[in-house]
């Protein structure tokens, strides 16, 4: 694992280009300090996020996955986040069947102007993941 062990956990974020990625930019421009664990993957729309990406990330080594899109009814592509919401809500309920704590996955909505909200989302989710601890602890110990 290439994250800084002991200080960070592995958190992957899928952010839609129009709202949440912009919101994260706004947070940066406003210098809203956040934990450093999150790594951001830019997607055009939260509707582009295949739930299997989330599963893949979690099974391959991530400790938490965050998906963030535009607020419902404010999607740049009109309906993309509605599809995202259905799929991701399903996924959340499916995760325990895969042996994954559903709290390791979170989806939310942050608009491009909500820098402060983005900071809170990142801070809260990172805190929640740290409380859960590393997901792949066993493998790490045997390695």
């Amino acid at each position, binding site marked *: 694992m290439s994250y800084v062990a002991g200080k960070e956990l592995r958190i992957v974020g899928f952010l839609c280009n129009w709202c949440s990625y912009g919101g994260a930019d706004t947070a940066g421009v406003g210098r809203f300090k956040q934990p450093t664990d999150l790594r951001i993957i830019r997607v055009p729309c939260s509707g582009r996020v295949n739930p299997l990406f989330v599963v893949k*990330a979690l099974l391959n080594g991530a400790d938490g996955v965050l998906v963030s899109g535009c607020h419902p009814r404010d999607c740049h592509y009109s*309906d993309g986040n509605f599809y995202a919401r259905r799929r991701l809500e399903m996924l959340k309920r499916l995760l325990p069947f895969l042996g994954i704590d559903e709290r390791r996955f979170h989806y939310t909505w942050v608009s491009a102007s909500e820098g402060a909200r983005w900071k809170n989302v990142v801070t809260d989710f990172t805190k929640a993941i740290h409380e859960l601890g590393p997901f792949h602890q066993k493998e790490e110990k045997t390695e």
Partner: protein
Amino acid sequence: MRVGVFICHCGNNIAGTVDVAKVAEAARMMPGVAFATTYMYTCSEPGQEEIKEAIKREKLDRVVVAACSPRMHELTFRRTVEKAGLNRYFFEMANIREHCSWVGEDKELNTNKAIETIKLAVEKAKQNKSLVASRFKINKRVLVIGGGVAGMQAALDCADGGLDVVLVEKSPSVGGMMARLDKTFPTVDCSICILGPKMVDVSQHEKINLYAYSEIEEIKGYVGNYQIKIRKKATYVDWSKCTGCGACIEKCPSRKAYDYFNFGVAPARAINIPFPQAIPKKAKIDAQFCRQFIKGKCGVCAKFCPVGAINYEMQDEIVTEDVGAIIVASGYGLIDLDKLPEYGGGRYPDVISGIQYERILNASGPTSGHIERPSDQAEPKTIVFVSCAGSRDKSIGIPYCSNFCCMYIAKQAILTKDHIPDSQSYVFYMDIRATGKGYDEFTRRAQEEYGAKYIRGRVSRIYPKGKKMVVKGADTLLGTTVEIEADLVVLATAVTATPDARMLAEKLHISYDQNGFYVESHPKLRPVETNTSGVFLAGACQGPKDIPASVGQGSAAAAKVLSIFSKDTLESDPQIARVNTNVCVGCRKCIGTCPFGAIEEQQLRDGRIVANVIETVCAGCGICNSTCPCGAIQLQHFTDNQLLAEVNALCLT
């Protein structure tokens, strides 16, 4: 594959909290990276030159720039690599400023995060395919939503530039808020005198097609080719016959209709023309006040109309217009007095809003320009103005400044003194914000020449005492409380987004902020663009602004439209969905989910039915991509392989 990584210091913005030398060193170790370097300002001309030279010298075939947000400079660097002979989609950007150096406090962690962000971009870049844009024809007509001063300016500039303009105005006349004002600051010019000619130009311009009393029903399409459905609301008066003579208004027995134009200062008739200079000057019936509609019998206007224009059976009509670009100038609203219970909440007739006072001052208003207080029509001698009535007040959800109230209060104080020389105005203010050209001088004139007494402090309560209104407030400069017995109180009510601003934004697919104002593409550098290409903003729908700023934005938006229409074709974004027909099983799931109707069925020569993406209609969201059960449809530049390469770069190593 030979990837080049260019790490930007961005002065101290990145290098201050990220060890860029260490990042470059780590980048050199990444598989596929042939070259990595740092540069002070990569976006500068020498910085871009360095990329171009390195591409040639090191024979790079993929380029990663680690710097600011791709929303900032992706296009800049795409052009750079293109000039060096690479396909522009062989470029990737790693955001190590907004998402890293600016938000993390620990240099070690930041440096590691920057390295990982670059690793992710390198893995993506290695998967990138060459994409080529195609061109499509555009419809050089423009839709302007809103006929206030910003919208009219935009419409006129576009029309003068030779474009066909469709102007849609919600109310029965163009003119917007400016048409309601008496005078304008800081020149004390008559508002309608300078706006009237523009309104006439709009109605007479052969290139402008005006839909008054109409609303946007539906918007479909994309830049260059929009299909707009416009709802022409029923006026119950045939405007092709109506001459605006006013005979119907004279005879109308429903005399207690709400006067939308005058903000309810005085009642209107159920059939009315909003104001004498209205364009178009046609009558309309407010059905909720009309006896014919409420009681089912009256018909007075129909009887007296000399041209037989009244038609009680009229229905809303939907018309369709095709345009290539949209300018949104839908304006602003004002908070209701009932949001301000400490100021009476609208219960006291002699506590009115600034715009109502504007109508009272106006010669074409209900009092013909004589200042009378609403309760007993007496001439007020002591007038108190309260600025920031709602503005800059987090407790009612309006944290922002309404921009122009300081100025119009000064203007109204001056006009009050002009109208009633023995009157005394008091102004309660938090700060005087007079930042425009000649503005500060103007507020000083109000105080020094016209004797308005400015009191720095807020008003805590307004209550009646006999015929007077007692205004209780603080004077924070003297450190005392103040009580003024006023004849009339004018509240500078806060500017808000229009009630239907959010609905319109959803139709346009543009974003709005937490206050309902539309969000521009970049607050400094793209102030009239939105994130939806082909949709532009003008005026107060983007945030409270005064007349010169609105006019400036109207012209700016028009210039933007003229510039995209200066070409006959537009380049389509190649980041769209493509179908691998060998894999597609023709399940049609993508067709059902596409929000743009961009996918159709196609029969191959062997008879198989597969999906086909209509290139110009696809907007590139990728919903179909995550819907497709067999991965046959892939969003270019964001394919499953590309995104999984990023996931794996983060998780597997």
